């Protein structure tokens, strides 16, 4: 009747100079439909802006979307900044056109979930639900 359960809050952001946000918006919708509060920040964000927004919104998860190929720089920058601020408890995810070979390297740098082409929205929802503490 009255539901006071904790809601998962997630920030969806597009870092860098990539104008393709169809994928990010579809993921945002799927997460909303799974009962989460999704803060969408729009295009062309710097890693610093993303981390600052994550602080103010006190999110459990950050999802980065990038199709330009700069993920090894931008995703890692966000991960490093989170570490710097002592925010390792925030679950960091990345999605986009990411070569298989890069995935282990991204994991190593602190990007807990990496989702390439062909990922279903269910996969992402499930991953978030399973990994948010």
């Amino acid at each position, binding site marked *: 009747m009255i*539901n006071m359960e904790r809601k998962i*809050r997630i920030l969806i952001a597009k870092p860098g100079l990539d104008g393709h946000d169809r994928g990010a918006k579809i993921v945002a919708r799927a997460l909303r439909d799974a009962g989460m509060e999704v*803060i969408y920040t729009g295009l062309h964000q710097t890693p*610093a802006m993303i981390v600052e927004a994550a*602080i103010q919104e006190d999110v459990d998860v950050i999802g980065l979307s990038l199709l330009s190929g700069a993920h090894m720089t931008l995703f890692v920058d966000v991960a490093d900044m989170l570490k710097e601020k002592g925010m390792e408890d925030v679950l960091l995810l990345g999605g986009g056109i990411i070569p298989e070979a890069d995935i282990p390297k991204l994991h190593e740098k602190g990007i807990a979930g990496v989702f390439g082409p062909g990922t279903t929205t269910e996969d992402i929802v499930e991953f978030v639900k399973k990994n948010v503490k």
Partner: protein
Amino acid sequence: MINTLTSKALQGDQRSIAKLITIVENDTSDATDAMKQIHPHTGNAHVIGITGVMGCGKSTLIYELTKKYRKQGKTVGIIAIDPTSPFSGGALLGDRIRMMELAMDEGVFIRSMGTRGMLGGLTSSVYDVVEIMDASGKDIVLVETVGVGQAEVDIIKISDTTIVVVVPGLGDSIQTLKAGIMEIADIYVVNKADRQGVEQTVAEVQSLVEIECSNKERKTPIIETIAKESKHIDTLVETIDEHKQFLKETKKLEQQRRNRYESELVEIIRKKLMSYVFNEEKFKETIEDLLQKIRSKEIDPHTASELILKKIMKT
């Protein structure tokens, strides 16, 4: 832990403010302790509520106002509310998109919130969030409601200054909005004033103001803005200052703040009472039993609710 969090939030630490907001939003057991420590430090911020139909430019206006206030050296807290889905319980909070340039400014704190089941254009924890931002030293707190229809007027319960935003091209709709949303404004903004039909919109609002304010000491001003081009935002800021001055001189501020606490009290009691009735084990059986009897027409909902109330008062 909650003590460290509140004392850091009172010093303006962004992360502690954010954590505290989460605590009051989820209404966890720490919420009461937190607000106990926050409340004595409140009362300094001027709270500005901004409401209007979907797409009228509320977020952009807030962005522009914030830039002006920052130039004056004032710090700003922003609460941006979007609707929670009644089906999934999720929400897509997108007001930040138009404000991201403010993200790196330490004098600005933006928080997006879902309505989480509340009607009226706000969310039930908004009172606490306003107090947290106020106590953390923000000079101005801007509250953006969801895109409203006609009757979402709760914003006046928390605002010192309520701004109602309208846009040209709504045709005769302003006439039909006579009751509700068009009664609550301290300032009207006609945004997108470069659009066709702006004269007519201003005239319609004007004629409403003439009727509404014929026996009031203050006539609600109407400001035309083009927020997207940063036009006439200065005038809006001046008008807000004038209203603030008016509230002080007429002692209306005191009255409004008293009303705010009253609404807040009602809201907190409502929440606590509802969760007491519907979440406590001891009432579960009674409620199920009564629901069954209502269905089989043995009893009516009014009598059932009286029985439940009697049971509460006995415990």
